[in-house]
């Protein structure tokens, strides 16, 4: 897998270099998502005192404002704390998808055609699951 540091290819696109970039990207995505969720959470709790706690003991599906992209974006524009939390969760869900996208590019620069194809298949399954499933 990873080339030793003394490798003549150390400056070219290697697995280890791709993995390092992927690791940095994943961490950035998660920290960004956590920060957005935290901001939404603090706003929610500041405003939630008056309202009763939502009932989670019976499942009744969240309203469309929190189950669709357009609903969440409208909510964020209206400064709805729960929509801001959902935006953070969407950033979190997008992070591994972006990771697979980065691997497509990384394998392309490594000239590994087989794994460009494999990562494109995974990416297509993920996009299907997010938008059509």
């Amino acid at each position, binding site marked *: *897998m990873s080339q030793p540091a003394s490798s003549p290819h150390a400056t070219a696109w290697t697995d280890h270099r791709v993995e390092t970039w992927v690791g*940095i990207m994943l*961490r950035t995505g*998660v920290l960004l998502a956590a920060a957005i969720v935290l901001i939404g*959470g603090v706003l*929610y709790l500041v405003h939630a005192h008056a309202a009763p706690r939502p009932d989670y003991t019976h499942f009744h599906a969240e309203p469309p404002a929190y189950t669709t992209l357009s609903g969440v974006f409208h909510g964020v524009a209206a400064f709805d704390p729960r929509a801001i939390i959902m935006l953070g969760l969407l950033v979190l869900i997008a992070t591994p998808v972006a990771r697979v996208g980065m691997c497509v590019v990384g394998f392309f620069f490594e000239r590994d055609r087989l794994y460009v194809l*494999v990562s494109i298949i995974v990416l297509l399954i993920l996009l299907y*699951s997010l938008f059509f499933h």
Partner: protein
Amino acid sequence: MDPLLFSLILLVSALAAGLLGALSGLGGGVVIVPLLTIVFHVDIHYAIGASLVSVIATSSGAAAAYVREGFSNIRVGMFLEIATTLGALVGAWLTTRVPTHAIGLVFGAVLLYSAYTSLRQHHDVLTRNPDALAVRLRLKGSLPTGTRDGQATHIDYVAQHVPAGFGLMTAAGVLSGLLGIGSGAVKVIAMDQAMRLPFKVSTTTSNFMIGVTAAASAGLYLRSGYLAPALAMPVMLGVLAGSLIGSRLLVRVHVRTLKIVFAFIIVALGVEMIASNLKGFL
């Protein structure tokens, strides 16, 4: 209970779950669903939604550290993600069709199984037998084993039994989508037992795959309304913080004792889930 107090209790519980999960190597995700359903009486659909986002967060948050160590194998991971994401599509779809008590029963069984695998001893059975399919798919690598005489040493490995590993990974994906967990235990079995990859490669590559696998269920969870923002918020933040703290503390605690303690907690939760859901059927 007022929302602030409820969120704080959830945050602290999730933090403890993430901490124990990281320290024992079992992952905090597996106890989130029983914690929410048994202790907080949350419906299992909301529970698996909150668990799924926590699992994506911990997997992605830990990946940077694993990459640095150089054990994970991105080709093995990417190839097997075809299986886990397809499985997750099926699993997530099943949550909209299968009765709640059936989900609870399967969950209980997976808890017992995870506890069992966590206590098993691991022996790497490495082979350099050039399995034709694995070589064509480049499912091989070299594992750093430390240094000798100032030189970095490593062991080369080639995956075995690729179709069996692929099949087990599909099952791991179904469980992940059905239960909102990473199903790391099944992933490790597929790589470690079936494909004969070194244990360190199996565990770190499994962790690397968990985020992508879970993301394949997230779309349907979102559209089905399983992601309750005010519930997922303290759970996700707590598990993430707990697991990040846990991975820093790892060197300073006795892992074996902790593993046994955590395994007992998991067995208790598994038995309780099976019992309460069997009652629901009768």
